[in-house]
């Protein structure tokens, strides 16, 4: 483990922020305080944190329906996120998008997405624009294992490689698409096998190990930034909660043992234990970080609660951009 301690702490912080945000969102949803669908990222924090930790602020990412983690990892503001989840006017999308469309273009976060697979082609476009302008920025497409069964993914991967674009495809392989296990919907075990078909390098990393994800991401981002073209990272990970919401309602599609096994490998506690063992940090230090970030989430919930709802006259606002550029 040769990553500088401050980098490890940065990755830790990103993960804890995600965890706290998601746990809070889950609690609110369970008490019926959040409208709509909620896809939680708990368990997969190491992927967003490890990858976004390798990016500059102005690099672009595209996300999925499970998008809060990506925005938090990119530096998303708790207040505006929580307000958006509640459908408030002060939210990131002014209450128009909600959980599934949360976005912050100023952070290069081009949106969670309700359409599985749709983010990857958009990342290709961002990568194209970045190279076109010679901006030196890269784009990362986050996507799930299940989304690699959709045409859009394949078209995006092929085009990115054909055009040799500065892009990284970051797969969160949590072994399920909704309630159906991966082995029922594809005949391969590793998503990374798909990379070769398009002519890009691919690696498998332990998606519960943020350091491993980060090291792979640094290499892939460096390749993209230096003109080496696309690559694919497959992070083997797991979502701790249900496909949407928290509790597993209705039919059981994962065994308790399987869920428990993965929870044993909690990416945050794994990192904390390792850092304490390596004398890179202390329990007290971590406790202080959790407490500080927890205060932020409490403040965000209060902010969102106190924020007004958008008014009906806002329904048709923001559909088009005017010729003066105002929205």
């Amino acid at each position, binding site marked *: 483990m040769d990553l500088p301690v401050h980098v490890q702490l940065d990755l830790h912080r990103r993960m804890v922020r995600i965890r706290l945000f998601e746990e809070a969102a889950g609690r609110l949803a369970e008490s019926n305080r959040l409208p709509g669908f909620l896809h939680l990222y708990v368990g997969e924090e190491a992927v967003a944190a490890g990858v976004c930790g390798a990016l500059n602020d102005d690099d672009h990412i595209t996300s999925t329906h499970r998008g809060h983690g990506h925005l938090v990892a990119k530096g998303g503001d708790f207040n505006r996120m929580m307000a958006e989840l509640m459908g408030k006017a002060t939210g990131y999308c002014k209450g128009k998008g909600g959980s599934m469309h949360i976005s912050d273009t100023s952070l290069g976060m081009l949106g969670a997405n309700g359409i599985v697979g749709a983010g990857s082609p958009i990342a290709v476009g961002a990568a194209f624009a970045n190279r076109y302008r010679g901006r030196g920025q890269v784009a990362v497409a986050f996507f799930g294992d299940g989304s690699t*069964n959709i045409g859009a993914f394949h078209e995006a991967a092929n085009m990115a490689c054909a055009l040799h674009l500065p892009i990284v495809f970051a797969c969160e392989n949590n072994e399920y698409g909704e309630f159906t296990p991966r082995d029922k919907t594809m005949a391969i075990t590793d998503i990374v096998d798909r990379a070769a078909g398009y002519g890009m390098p691919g690696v498998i990393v332990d998606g519960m190990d943020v350091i491993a994800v980060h090291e792979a991401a640094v290499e892939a981002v460096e390749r993209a930034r230096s003109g080496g073209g696309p690559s694919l990272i497959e992070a083997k990970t797991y979502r701790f909660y249900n496909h949407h919401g928290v509790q597993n309602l209705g039919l059981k599609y994962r065994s308790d043992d399987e869920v428990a096994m993965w929870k044993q490998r909690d990416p945050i506690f794994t990192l904390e234990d390792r850092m304490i063992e390596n004398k890179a940090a202390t329990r007290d230090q971590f406790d202080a970080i959790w407490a500080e970030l927890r205060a932020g989430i409490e403040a965000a919930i209060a902010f969102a609660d106190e924020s007004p709802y958008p008014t009906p006259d806002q329904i048709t606002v923001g559909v088009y951009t005017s010729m003066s550029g105002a929205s």
Partner: protein
Amino acid sequence: MADERKLAYVMAFNEAVKQQMEVDSSVFCAGEDIGAFGGVFGTFGGLQAKFGADRVVDTPISEQAIVGLGVGAAVTGLRPIVDLMFMDFICVALDQIVNQAAKLKYMFGGDAVLPLTITTAGGGGLSAAAQHSQSLEALLCHIPGLKVVMPSNPYDMKGLMTACIQENNPTVMIKHKRLLGMTGHVPEESYSIPLGKGNIVRPGKDVTIVAYARMSNEALIAAEELAKDGIDCEIIDPRTLQPLDTDLIISSVKKTNHAVVVHEAVRFGGLGGEIASQIQELAFDYLDAPVTRIGAPFSPVPFSPALEQHYIPDSKTIVQGIRDVMARV
């Protein structure tokens, strides 16, 4: 009748599929999460256990290939039911729906039969936001070669779904997400409601309301409200939008001399425009006021309940719309 058997909309769908699968071995189902899980809305619940994984197939997340599977299997002799979880996802599969399913027969000089049913779930009201709440039926009705069905209650659901499966042409069966739990009388024995036949949901003499899917039920509530003011509404639920039961609508308008069309879809370019111009062309001399359309504003479906509740028409919007029409007389 007190002892009438009641069934939920979602189970009426399920029963129609089950009964057709029992009598016709060429019927199979395919879609995301429909097998072991029974579909995210429970629409296919229990069917894989009953008919096996060869007839109730869990597919990858591959909408284009799902519809393509249906097209290819239909044209080679099976009777597929393919499911697209949310109506918004038809956009991912539009080539297979619009350029393939709808057109093969015609392009082959008539030499193809496509007994294909595409099932999906449309409509808003769940804070599911812009990509999981749309009502895109007008897009489909514009395509020659497709039939489009949108049931408003459990009874119609079962009869129309049965007709879709038995139909020898590609049909799109659009369930409304907000109606899944609606219960009502549904006979146990198999029956079908002919595609293209509308229903007079409520007879009346003063104004014709053409409304389908959930809006048909909202129109009923509106009619009760308006009855207090002495406005007697006749509600026509076309049930099938393509082909459309124009005759039923026109004969009603000739009687009431007023017409209002209601849908949840965006008003501009919605089916209401087509229905209104049919009425104007075929019953112009009978009209005492312009035909009015009630639909959603020209924006994507907003997420926040504070916006969505004003976005989707409801009984109050319909009452107001009808008062406006009647006030012109």
